[in-house]
């Protein structure tokens, strides 16, 4: 492997990992936001059901 190969490998891994983490984070946020909306709208009926 030549010098630049190592450089690109390092930069590639780092930035893909960061982007990947951000994507996962966003997805988790969206799921929870959807859950929150679901809990809050037909909210009262659900609350009574859960109690």
């Amino acid at each position, binding site marked *: *492997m030549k*010098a*630049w190969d*190592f*450089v690109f*490998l*390092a*930069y590639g*891994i*780092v*930035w893909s*990992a*960061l982007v990947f*983490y*951000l994507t996962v*984070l*966003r997805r*988790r*946020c969206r799921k*929870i*936001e959807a*859950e*929150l909306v679901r*809990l*809050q709208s037909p*909210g*009262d009926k659900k*609350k009574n059901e*859960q109690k």
Partner: protein
Amino acid sequence: MASTTKKSGRGRSILGGLAFFFILMGLYFALIQAPPDAYQGEVQRIMYLHIPSILTAYLSFFIVFIGSALFLWKRERRDDILAYAAAEIGVLFTGLTIVEGSIWGKPAWGVWWTWDARLTLTAILLLIFVGYLMLRSLIEDEDQSAVCGAVLGIIGFLDIPLIHMSVYWWRTLHQPPSILRPDKLPWENVHPAMLIALSINFIAFLLVYFYLLSSRIRLGELQEEVKKTRLYGAA
């Protein structure tokens, strides 16, 4: 509540945009503008990733400490969310630091891994962070989990200087940090163009870190919101 989330959402987007801008600038300076090192050649460019990474990882650890201490003192949920978020992202950055160090090490030293001071210290840091995450996830009760995590966050941080000293005394193979040499001023050791590239990349990493941190905190706050809604009904 809704208005503050919108405002913080906009703040986050601005932060993200700024981070993205600095990333591009950093990449340009690191890969194109900065000259190759006299001894190491192009491979030295990995340092523009490695040094900001490790510094950010240490910053994250410090934030875990602050969050943990505040939580034990005031018992406010948001301090716990801060600590957990910083730990999660800290694991990410510490892991990346090790990978970068390893990739740099192969052409520079000829080996993928060596038990020198800096790499060993980073590995230990990673172990403590991972231990924190495992501890938190294995304790079911949330309040207990928060307290126990906070204890580890504080003790772990207090241990860092001691770990540092013991590992450094044990191993002194790593190159003396060329920027932080005590006898010379920081800018006398390094070529100015390299210093600029390093600074820009450092700012970029900081911005990315805080962007990720604020997003992760938002996730934590949402989770808290869901929990409260389940328990007490809609606000």
